[in-house]
């Protein structure tokens, strides 16, 4: 197992170096002088220009610059936002919980609906229910979620007035961030109604962000179940006279879950893509909105640091999924 972990880890190193290269060159590929780009329209005088050039190490040869950059990254120094003058890492840490909270809720939403739907569709193959689930999931998979969010707002917030339009919590409440997860913090804060308000604000963004994963998980569960249900050991289990429920829930489901776990892991990258759009629509103060705003403010250090951190997180989750996969399924561990 240790050997397996080490091989997997060693495969990640070149990818990580690659991502640092992308992040490093990002600021240098922007046409024009990076200092002037960062200074924006206000312009900059020559002395300050020189000073900034030194500060960013832009007077050194490229290779040295990259070395300095890597050295800083490894010490956790990702530079400062040129707009807020705050360290990129601190900003990231402050906003990240909001994105995680939304992402976790979205995945839970997708699992709770997707797995049962997939199982039922497989068990009742070619029934109306099966066709319905497959049709809906392909629709969900094709969904432009930025539009989906607007439509849900139109329906539930504007027409029915059930849910708030945007934000994480009502402005009436001030919750001291402890964990950064508002659902937990608001429960601990003993403020009347704060938890409910946070929950209300989560509903629509969760549905919007969870739609694509829901579609993927339902389809994957169905096809994995169909494959497993055709195996000999299922026939044996049925022949032994086990109840239909026992055969499906205990014998089939366990094996069918293996590919589903992988798919869930792969959804992390998809979730980040979705979070960028969902957070923009619902003004959700997370990483996605932060990165989009950084683009419009031409805040390159934020973009650079955000790219690196998001890349590192996606890589770690993928590694974790790989390792879990090796744990659940010994065949994988031994063949490599």
């Amino acid at each position: 197992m240790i050997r397996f972990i080490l091989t997997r880890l060693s495969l990640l190193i070149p990818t990580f170096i690659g991502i640092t290269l992308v992040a490093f060159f990002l600021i240098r590929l922007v046409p024009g002088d990076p200092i002037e780009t960062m200074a924006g329209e206000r312009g900059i005088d020559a002395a300050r220009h020189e000073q900034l050039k030194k500060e960013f190490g832009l007077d050194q040869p490229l290779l040295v610059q990259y070395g300095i950059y890597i050295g800083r990254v490894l010490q956790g120094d990702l530079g400062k936002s040129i707009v807020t003058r705050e360290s990129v890492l601190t900003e990231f840490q402050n906003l990240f919980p909001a994105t995680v909270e939304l992402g976790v809720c979205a995945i839970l939403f997708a699992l709770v609906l997707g797995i049962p739907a997939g199982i039922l569709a497989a068990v009742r193959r070619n029934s109306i229910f099966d066709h319905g689930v497959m049709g809906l999931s392909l629709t969900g998979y094709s969904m432009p979620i930025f539009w989906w969010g607007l439509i849900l707002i139109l329906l539930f917030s504007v027409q029915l007035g059930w849910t708030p339009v945007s934000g994480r919590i009502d402005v009436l409440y001030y919750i001291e961030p402890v964990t950064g997860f508002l659902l937990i913090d608001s429960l601990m804060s003993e403020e009347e109604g704060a938890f409910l308000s946070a929950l209300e604000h989560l509903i629509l963004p969760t549905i919007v962000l969870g739609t694509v994963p829901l579609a993927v998980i339902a389809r994957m569960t169905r096809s994995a179940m169909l494959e497993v249900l055709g195996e000999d050991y299922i026939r044996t289990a049925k022949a032994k006279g086990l109840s239909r429920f026992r055969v499906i829930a205990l014998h089939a489901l366990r094996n069918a879950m293996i590919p589903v776990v992988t798919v869930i892991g792969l959804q992390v990258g998809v979730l980040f893509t979705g979070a960028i759009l969902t957070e923009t629509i619902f003004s959700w103060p997370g990483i996605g909105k932060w990165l989009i705003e950084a683009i419009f403010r031409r805040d390159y250090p934020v973009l650079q640091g955000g790219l690196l951190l998001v890349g590192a997180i996606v890589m770690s989750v993928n590694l974790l999924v790989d390792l879990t996969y090796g744990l659940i399924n010994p065949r994988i561990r031994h063949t490599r």
Partner: protein
Amino acid sequence: MTTETMEAPAVTAPTATPPHPLREFWGYFSANRGAVAGLAVIVAVVLLAVFADVLAPHSPYITDTTIALKPPFWQEGGSIAYPLGTDPIGRDILSRLIYGARLSLLIGIIVVTVSIVFGTILGLIAGYVRGMTEIAIMRLMDIVLTLPSLLLAIVIVAILGPGLINSMMAVALVILPHYVRLARAAVITETSKDYVMAARVSGAGALRLMFKEVLPNCTAPLIVQASLGISTAILDAAALGFLGLGAQPPSPEWGTMLADAREFVLRAWWVVTFPGLAILITVLAFNLLGDGLRDALDPKLKR
């Protein structure tokens, strides 16, 4: 993502000559009703795009504030002259959608063509040359795959500047790895086969082997991926347009239309509903087609 071909396609009793491959393909394909529906929608969208000049009742660009935010014809205040209503500066939404079909199809086709051409070349090289070249190409693709697709596209647009062409280039790069991986995998399987050896023995050069012998035998998965790729390309380009990084106003690109209309969502439901519906229907059609093609072309599912 498999649609099992349960209803066995109507195959006639074995005859002396096997059916023409295209005929056989159509037999499998037409058994899948979803795929046929997808194809029908795509044909309709293509016709709309081609004959936009004739079909669109109004110009997609001319503004007229006296008729701003007119509702669709079935609602009070709407008129049949503007069937789907007008936008905040009085442009006919239907006409803009019809011209938008042109843009979306062009985006889909160009992006996928660029990706396929470069992806296939890189994949063929990786699979054929092996060694360090292969490692370098595949690691590079891993990086692209690791980063969330929209984030990477956004970063590229941030470098190149917003706009339709730049956003298309960004999306093309983001979907490139799928084609590289497919082409490489297919080449590796194919090159070990006897017919390639035979061609090599008879003196075929590397280029001929790659393009004349191996490539025609790995087209099936590429075609499937192309259809699915068009839907991804349309969706991603629309997302960039929505974020203000893709096609710029007054372009009638569907995502850009949504971005323009966003602030009017509370007052005029039609300005946001129809462009999104157009994206959804088109993307869904290409996904249905892709699924159908996969089932019809995948030899593993043919029994």
